[in-house]
């Protein structure tokens, strides 16, 4: 499509893909992050803070898991230590789930946009 001076760039942008459904599915997730910006009743101030705090805890929790797996792979943990570590991390994951549901937050709600660095989680 050639761009003529008449009405080129203010026309609708062209979209081209061979996998429309796949991309639609992915993009719909992106559009769904909108609700965080628009709820303006007093309760959501609390929820906004809970979200921030739980996001940071979740971030740390994932780091702990990665670290545990690294240690496990490194071979310097005994089977008993692996079992104990795994159980502790399981409990941590369960606890966080509990907290999330107490505040009515879903998995997708816990994230921080770090601008150019991308998302925290």
């Amino acid at each position, binding site marked *: 499509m050639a761009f003529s001076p008449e009405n080129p760039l203010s026309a609708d942008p062209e979209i081209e893909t061979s996998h429309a459904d796949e991309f*639609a599915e992915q993009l*719909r997730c992106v559009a769904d992050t909108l609700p965080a910006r628009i709820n303006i*009743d007093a309760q*959501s*101030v609390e929820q906004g803070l809970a979200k921030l705090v739980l996001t940071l805890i979740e971030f740390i929790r994932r780091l702990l898991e990665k670290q545990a797996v690294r240690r496990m792979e490194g071979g310097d943990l005994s089977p008993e230590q692996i079992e104990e570590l795994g159980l502790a991390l399981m409990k941590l994951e369960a606890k966080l789930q509990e907290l999330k549901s107490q505040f009515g937050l879903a998995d997708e709600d816990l994230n921080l946009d770090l601008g150019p660095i991308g998302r925290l989680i």
Partner: protein
Amino acid sequence: MSDFDQILVSEEWEDTDLSMLETLDHVLNRGIVIAGEITISVANIDLIFIGLNVLVSSVETAREVIRKRGTE
């Protein structure tokens, strides 16, 4: 709905219309943000962008709600 209840309604985005979704991606996630952003930097590296649009509106609205309730 009262003025201070859900002023903003989020619809279900039912469409699979890719053109619309792409447009939304641009309009909702990018572009100049003029109000209420705090940038927290560590060692001159921008780390956290916290959108305060919601928070500022919520605090203001919360105050209004409290004030209004006080006069009822």
